[in-house]
């Protein structure tokens, strides 16, 4: 009975989303204030219905209701509670429901926070979000109903994909989706502005915190995914330029550009049409990612069971939503004018370069991701594009970006007078280069031009970002949260650059075959296999190896890598043994049983990899600080007063 109610709740949610779209868009267009007022009610109703559906599906998972096909396919009576809940987003239907739920949460948040915005504008934003909800709900009901019954019920479930039975992966999709879906808010603000013909600095100020929040979630989500693949897939890789990874990275690059161009639009009223385009582009890429992952057009290790009819639906939706937005853009953007000018070395220029380089980087990733598809379609040949393409092309866009960042943070708005800042710039650059060379020659050894560049750039960004805030503190001036947040985010980026340089330049890796008692040396550490033993988990049996790691004859740690064999799906999953020593990971993964007690193992020494997780975390934290800046709270309060004042006059 409950699953049918869940399905019914989704049908009601679809109707309410339709009403929300209609009232939100038609209300302001025809000047019907009642319709405008009804939009928020539709939002609240839609949220309640979607939340009910999610709650019912979670209940079915928790209570082993194997009469629901989706539950039977993605859980099992031996599956621990935590993963029974996470199984909700373990496959296509449920993760789509999660997407819809998160969209409903963002929409509700917009409805609550935007009470202080002009009513008609807020209604338009909610109306556009309603269109998106409607599309996704229709998609779910038409092609991917998570409440489909299995008659007769299965006595037991087929279990959750073992790769997903991991704490890292249990939280990665919701965080990532929160980011993806959050970009819909920026998109909706852009569409509302175009519908209304209002694109002033106020618009940028309203949009900015939402974009920053979505960007921060996206940053965390991508990092979590990378961390998960690092320690569970058993090869120690953290980024493979896989289509699905790219699908999350492209919106991130564009969202990063958008945050920066919004700053220019807010402060100086410039780049208006460009900012609008980026807002459309960010969400378009996030929809495109959904399409690529779920349509089966590209094959990836992460993709869901694909189905061309779903692909066609998403493509049609993609065409309508993005095509509609871009048509609106072609119609409205030419009306935008900004008369303000700026010098070549002003902050505006640097942010423009930032935007161009980020978009170029996103375009190279998009090109590489779609190249196999285009080759297949046009030339009928199969083509696979991987790191050899992505790495150099990406670096080509990113190295100048990093260099410009160190200079750009000192530039003033409007006027380009870097002479005043020349000294700190040169001093920090000098210190950074010496530091970079010192790390390379002192700590790691070996000659690596790219490593010196990487360490140099990373430390330059840190030093250079700190100059202005420290200077303000020295002069007893206050620092706004926005500035602290920005500085923190830039430092986080620099930390990630340092980490990538260390990991990419100085990882030692070896595949070794060891008999019990034998040892092998990798990167100055001796790995000794002490033995293997069988272990039983809740729904798997595993082989656990005991490996001691020592350096110069002194024991450092003992690691226990595992190969888990899951009972139901008969799939294996590896859990690497990792020990962190001064930010360097000593990594060991168990491979295959070679017979007679011998095992193959993969040992890696990855220096500075801890910083690779820390850097993005700092960036996200910086984003969170920036969006809590007084400016947004005060602005909201003053708008409320203005609104109350205006109402008072009208009466």
């Amino acid at each position, binding site marked *: 009975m409950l699953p049918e109610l869940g399905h019914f709740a989704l049908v009601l949610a679809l109707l309410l989303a339709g009403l929300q779209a209609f009232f939100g868009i038609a209300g302001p267009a025809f000047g019907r204030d009642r319709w405008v007022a009804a939009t928020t009610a539709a939002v609240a109703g839609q949220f309640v219905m979607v939340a009910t559906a999610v709650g019912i599906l979670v209940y079915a998972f928790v209570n082993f209701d194997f009469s629901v096909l989706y539950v039977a396919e993605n859980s*099992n*009576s031996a599956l621990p509670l935590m993963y029974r809940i996470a199984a909700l987003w373990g496959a296509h239907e449920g993760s789509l429901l999660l997407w819809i739920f998160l969209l409903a949460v963002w929409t509700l948040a917009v409805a609550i926070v935007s009470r202080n915005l002009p009513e008609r504008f807020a209604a338009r934003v909610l109306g556009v979000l309603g269109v998106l909800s409607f599309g996704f709900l229709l998609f779910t009901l038409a092609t991917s109903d998570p409440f489909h019954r299995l008659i*007769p019920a*299965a*006595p*037991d479930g*087929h279990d959750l994909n073992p790769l997903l039975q991991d704490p890292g992966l249990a939280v990665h999709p919701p965080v990532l989706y929160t980011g993806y879906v959050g970009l819909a808010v920026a998109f909706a603000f852009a569409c509302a502005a175009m519908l209304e013909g209002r694109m002033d600095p106020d618009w940028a100020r309203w949009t900015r915190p939402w974009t920053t929040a979505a960007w921060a979630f996206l940053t965390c989500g991508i990092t979590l995914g990378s961390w998960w693949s690092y320690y569970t897939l058993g090869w120690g890789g953290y980024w493979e330029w896989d289509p699905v990874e790219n699908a999350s990275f492209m919106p991130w690059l564009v969202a990063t550009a958008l945050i920066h161009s919004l700053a220019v639009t807010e402060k100086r009223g410039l780049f208006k*049409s460009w900012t609008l*385009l980026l807002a*459309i*582009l960010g969400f*378009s890429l996030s929809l495109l990612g959904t*399409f690529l992952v779920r*349509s*089966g*057009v590209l*094959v990836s290790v992460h*993709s*869901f*069971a*694909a*189905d*061309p009819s779903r*692909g*066609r639906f998403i*493509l049609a939706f*993609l*065409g309508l939503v*993005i*095509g509609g937005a*871009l*048509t609106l*853009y*072609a*119609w409205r*953007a*030419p009306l935008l004018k900004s008369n303000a000018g700026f010098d070549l070395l002003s902050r505006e220029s640097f942010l423009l370069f930032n935007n161009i380089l980020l978009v170029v980087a996103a375009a190279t990733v998009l090109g590489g991701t*779609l190249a196999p*598809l*285009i080759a*297949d*379609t046009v030339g009928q040949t199969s083509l696979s594009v991987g790191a050899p393409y992505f790495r150099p092309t990406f670096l080509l866009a990113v190295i100048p970006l990093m260099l410009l960042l160190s200079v750009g943070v000192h530039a003033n708005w409007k006027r380009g007078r870097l002479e005043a800042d020349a000294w700190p710039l040169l001093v920090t650059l000098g210190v950074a280069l010496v530091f970079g060379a010192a790390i390379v020659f002192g700590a790691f050894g070996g000659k690596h031009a790219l490593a010196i560049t990487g360490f140099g750039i990373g430390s330059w960004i840190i030093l250079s970002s700190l100059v202005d805030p420290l200077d303000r503190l020295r002069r007893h001036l206050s620092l706004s949260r926005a500035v602290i947040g920005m500085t923190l985010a830039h430092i986080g980026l620099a930390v990630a650059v340092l980490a990538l340089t260390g990991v990419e330049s100085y990882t030692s890796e070896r595949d070794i075959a060891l008999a019990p008692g034998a040892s092998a040396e990798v990167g100055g550490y001796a790995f000794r296999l002490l033995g293997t033993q069988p272990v039983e988990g809740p729904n798997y049996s595993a082989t656990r190896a005991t490996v001691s790691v020592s350096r110069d004859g002194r024991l450092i740690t003992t690691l226990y890598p595992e190969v888990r064999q899951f*009972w*139901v*799906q*008969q*799939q294996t999953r590896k859990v690497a043994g990792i020990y962190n020593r001064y930010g360097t990971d000593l990594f060991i993964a168990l491979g295959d049983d070679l017979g007679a007690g011998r095992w193959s193992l993969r040992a890696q020494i990855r220096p500075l990899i801890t910083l690779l997780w820390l850097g993005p975390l700092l960036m996200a934290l910086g984003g969170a600080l920036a969006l809590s800046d007084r400016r947004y709270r005060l602005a909201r309060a003053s708008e409320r007063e203005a609104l109350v004042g205006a109402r008072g006059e009208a009466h």
Partner: protein
Amino acid sequence: MKPRFLVPLGVFAVLVVVLFVGINHSREVGVLQSPLVGHQIPDWELPVLTDPAKSLGSRELKGQWYVLNFWGTWCYACRAEHPILLQAQRDARVQIIGVDWKDENDLALEFLAKLGNPYSLIVSDHTGNTAIDLGVAAAPESFLVNPEGVIVYKEPGVITAETWKREFLSRVPPQSSAPAATPGAS
């Protein structure tokens, strides 16, 4: 309307066309139809469970209709399928060959003694190599093979009374009750 503001729309239109062609081109990945359906079954030969000295393979079974059913005592869903297979065996329209997959012989014999044996013959795939050749992802999975050795249908999960009738029996001609397979000595 200035033409340069139409550029994004144009680029997007090209992208949609590429994706549309791509999606209609793409092989139906992941749709639960094995690429083996309609093709010769890959050659297989496995030891007989009750008498591991003997073996049975695709060659011995040529000329007969048979269902190759992958199962294991560790597999919960196979227990659910078991009564259906027992019933199907009683109909005796088509013989069912069981492949005891990644399992212990003792456990398998005990399981069958307790729950009944629906199979005309059982072979054991200890290494899992035959399962890999046939693209078996998770037990139970069953293949319907015709006398020419061509896979006619693949059931990627539990066989129900309904699917047995609709997907298996409907494909087998009624007069096909062939002599039971005899294992060859190896």
